[in-house]
């Protein structure tokens, strides 16, 4: 691109160009009206800016509705169809995420952490280690795909940015919990890392989103609910409640994204079944991994000795709840997994699934 060295001199003489003022194709007079909570993304989705193309005509960072130079460079986005990333609730979820941010440093009453019996502290720290380990993949995965998404779908990108921040905070808060009460970090298991690798290595956004937003985060949401229930003190209760809120937004995006995707291309259903098949197989291993199951069983009944007497009663309830809620969300997205669920029947006791579970 050539430098117009004369421009400085002309501007100094007051000879402004003003072509941007006189000849730009604009929608002068357009006026968005704030809603009750302020000026939202939905409120400004008006005029040509509010028209989100099914296929992005260009690959630039320019806002929709702008008068774009004909010689803009191609920025090389690979996700250029709206259906590849969109969900009908994404604008609302972005606004909600921004509104409901919290601080793991400021908003958790760390100084109120009580001294706990060693087995309870160990269990809490093992759970915190697991959660701190898994949460960051939900930052890494969207970050890996973010730059590939066309800016015409910027609301989806912005939502994913909030998710990245949410998950950074979850990683932070559980590390802090493990290190804040004399317990320290616990065991990191290979099977957990294998599941994270499956998400991170996804060959396309569809695969990764189904595995992460729908399957993994749906499970973690249930674990956060269980964590709030089992928490040994009000400090952990607040941690889990705040994390639960964030996670539920991510699951809401993933569910509605899958629905949006399948409504426009039902032929993709078989691909999604295949992705979830692989994910469920690894999830089944997690359901039988002591480092994953036993801390919650111990927290549920108040100690190792009590857990040895009562068995995995609480873990059974939780597992059932996790799978039921996951199947409900799959139904909502239009991808019934009830006949195809790839989880062994021994794990599915009491569940309403058509196949009775994989063998």
């Amino acid at each position, binding site marked *: 691109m050539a430098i117009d060295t004369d421009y400085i001199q002309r501007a100094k003489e007051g000879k402004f160009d003003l072509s941007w003022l006189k000849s730009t194709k604009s929608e002068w007079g357009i006026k968005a009206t704030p809603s*009750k*909570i302020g000026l939202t993304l939905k409120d400004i989705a008006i005029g040509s800016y509010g028209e989100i193309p099914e296929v992005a005509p260009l690959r630039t960072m320019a806002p929709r509705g702008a008068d774009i130079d004909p010689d803009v460079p191609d920025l090389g986005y690979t996700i250029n169809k709206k259906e590849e990333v969109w969900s009908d*609730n994404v604008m*609302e979820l972005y*606004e*909600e995420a921004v*509104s*409901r*941010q*919290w601080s793991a440093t400021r*908003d958790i009453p760390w100084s109120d952490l009580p001294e706990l019996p060693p087995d309870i502290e160990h269990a809490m720290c093992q759970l915190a280690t697991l959660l701190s380990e898994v949460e960051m993949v939900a930052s890494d995965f969207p970050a890996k795909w973010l730059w590939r998404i066309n800016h015409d779908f910027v609301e989806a990108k912005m939502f994913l940015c909030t998710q990245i921040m949410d998950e950074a905070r979850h990683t932070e808060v559980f590390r802090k919990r493990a290190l804040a009460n004399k317990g320290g970090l616990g065991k990191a298991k290979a099977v957990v890392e294998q599941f994270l690798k499956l998400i991170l290595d996804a060959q396309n956004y569809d695969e990764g989103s189904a595995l992460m937003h729908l399957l993994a985060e749906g499970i973690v*949401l249930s674990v956060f*609910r*269980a964590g*709030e*229930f089992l*928490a040994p003190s*009000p400090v952990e*209760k*607040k941690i889990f*409640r*705040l994390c*639960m*809120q964030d*996670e*539920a*937004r991510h*699951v*809401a995006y993933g*569910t*509605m994204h899958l629905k949006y995707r399948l409504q426009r291309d039902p032929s993709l259903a078989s691909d999604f079944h295949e992705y979830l098949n692989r994910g469920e197989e690894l999830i089944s291993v997690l359901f039988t991994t002591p480092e994953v199951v036993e801390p919650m069983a111990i927290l549920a009944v108040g100690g190792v000795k009590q857990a040895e007497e009562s068995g995995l009663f609480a873990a059974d*309830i939780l597992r059932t*709840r996790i799978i039921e*809620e996951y199947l*409900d*969300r799959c*139904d*909502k997205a239009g991808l019934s997994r009830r006949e195809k669920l790839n989880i062994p029947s021994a794990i599915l006791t009491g569940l309403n699934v058509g196949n009775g579970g994989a063998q």
Partner: protein
Amino acid sequence: MIATKVRSSFPTKDWFNELAQIATQTLDPKALGWADLNLGLEIIGPSETYNVVVCFDGYEINVSDSTEFDKVDAIVSGPINVFEAMIKDIQSHGFAQGPYTFNALTIAGIPLSIRSDDPLNRDKVFRYAQTIQHFFDSAAKLETI
């Protein structure tokens, strides 16, 4: 300063109105953010069931006259003695303790259950968990008869 002298009986429209008013006045928008949820409460007594709709609307919490009970996002249902025990715990400690938090009472489907025709509307209960807990914890400031 929030008034705590109002004496209302539970469960009545007056009681929930007072609770919603206190919860709105004490809600820190920067800490909790806005919410968008119509939550039905189905409080089952020995002889009759009391239904109320709590609207979490932006930064305000209201008890609705106009929202039909069967059109809410989700319904929380359970015996009145469970709700009473929750309120008593909140009023004894200033906020809900271990088994009496809203999430703890609903997670297993007993003693309180959450039902919704739409799993995403059910999930909204989780999306606004801290706000819902704030609402119930506000009962600590409400003299109840």
